[in-house]
């Protein structure tokens, strides 16, 4: 018998073991929900799967009685737009300033302390300032995401740029490259897959800020909806919304990973 640390589950066992905790959680939930509903059929805290399916039906596939909109679709599009603009701007800023900081010592000496300083400010603490300065509309929510994730993305991109082997930077110069060419032909292409990796990590934080901002001031959006129906203890809406947000996050992460593997095969092959 091999030692436990040397024993590997086969493919089927890995699937089974991976799905097991999910199945267990689901079973525990169904058990608890059934028990509570048996005691009081109007109990809102642990809705049955049927109740949740009805809520999804109502939110996703029937137009709202008040506005005639499909609420889940409307919320999803609103949230994804904010998230997309926010994370897109953050990634672009991180790319520009991260590479500039990493590549040019004079820029790094000037901007790096500022970036570190800004990254230490807790973004939620300045949310009121954002609402005062940018109003309660879209801009403030997008700004919260940008302020929340950009500084650490810039720091990460700066670090990745500095990690490009010195040998390659010298090599570029011996091939006749000037500073700009070294950035565009060596650093930029090598940093792009790393930017995608950092963006995947930053998305978790971005969702946090998005939902926080929507909870405080919004008229649509996934976070707004969750905090709205909380007033009526509508767990049958909240739980499917949370699952939906998780699924969206999973899909975005999967797509970014696929994109990175498709565009930058050399990056993934070297095991970095």
């Amino acid at each position, binding site marked *: 018998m091999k030692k436990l640390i040397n024993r590997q589950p086969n493919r089927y066992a890995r699937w089974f073991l991976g799905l097991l905790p999910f199945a267990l959680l689901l079973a525990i939930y169904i058990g608890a929900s059934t028990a509570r509903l048996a005691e009081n059929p109007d109990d809102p805290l642990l809705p049955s799967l049927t109740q949740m399916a009805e809520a999804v039906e109502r939110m996703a596939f029937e137009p709202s009685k008040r506005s005639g909109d499909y609420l889940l679709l409307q919320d999803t599009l609103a949230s994804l737009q904010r998230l997309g603009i926010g994370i897109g701007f953050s990634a672009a800023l991180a790319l520009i300033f991260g590479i500039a900081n990493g590549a040019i010592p004079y820029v790094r000496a000037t901007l790096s302390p500022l970036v570190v300083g800004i990254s230490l400010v807790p973004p939620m603490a300045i949310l009121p300032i954002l609402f005062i300065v940018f109003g309660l509309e879209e801009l403030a929510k997008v700004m919260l995401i940008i302020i929340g994730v950009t500084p650490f993305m810039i720091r990460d991109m700066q670090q990745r740029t500095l990690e490009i082997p010195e040998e390659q930077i*010298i*090599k570029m110069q*011996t*091939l*006749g490259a000037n500073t700009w060419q070294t950035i565009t*032909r060596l650093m930029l*292409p090598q940093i792009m897959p790393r930017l995608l990796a950092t963006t995947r990590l930053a998305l978790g934080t971005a969702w946090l800020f998005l939902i926080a901002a929507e909870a405080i001031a919004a008229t649509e959006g996934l976070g707004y909806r969750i905090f709205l129906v909380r007033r009526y203890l509508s767990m049958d809406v909240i739980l499917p919304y949370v699952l939906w947000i998780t699924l969206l996050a999973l899909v975005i992460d999967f797509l970014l990973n696929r994109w990175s593997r498709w565009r930058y095969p*050399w990056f993934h092959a070297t095991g970095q």
Partner: protein
Amino acid sequence: MAMIEIRNLWKEFGEDVVLERLNASIEAREFVTVVGASGCGKTTFLKMLLGTETPTRGELLLDGKPIPEEPDATRGIVFQRYSVMPHLDATGNVMLAGELEASRWLGRVFGAHRRRLRDDAIAMLKEVGLEHALDKYPHELSGGMQQRLALAQALIKKPRILLLDEPFGALDPGIRRDMHELVSRLWREQQLTVFMITHDIEEGFALGTRLWVFDKERLDPQAPEAYGARITYDLAVGRDDTGVLDDINADVDATARTIDTQTPQPTGEHS
């Protein structure tokens, strides 16, 4: 006039003396191999030739002028590792120098110019025996093939000086012999001045026209860094003396090759 002149050169890092009182000159088309213990300043000296380190005292002259204090296209280099760009395939790596020269802002060229660069790159890759790996990325190549690619990439820029920093240190002995033949051939054909660091003294003897040993003449066991290394041996070695016959052969070969680049010919592995 000597191509490279070293006059009373010192290199110190704070209290530590790395090199002291170096005096030498290198003629064009010499192949200097450098051996010596680790920490004897071989790499520091190479970095000064490259321009990433500057002498503390003394002069390092290229064509009578101080050598430029940053890397540029006069000096090509192949390091032991990380010499090729991992994000470009073999052809892309070799085309890089031409693209950088042709397009100052984009660093890329298109159309007929691109095809011409591509043809040149493919000819160069054939020269180093990589004709079967044109669209392979470096991570798909073995260590020896990566170094062949690095040589092709450096040499297509036609540098006057080729610097080699233990380029074959990480390769298997058999592969290393192949690489020696390749480097000797390229050195003769392209009329290069080569400066190569190795810690394999046999390689140093077999490959160069001139062998330098960097060593500390004065060594204080309590403070080994108190005195710097010097060139303790400066020997003419190798069968490839810059004799007349070889010169003629090289010239003829180079001409033949220039003519021949129009029609692809199988170069084959030299083993």
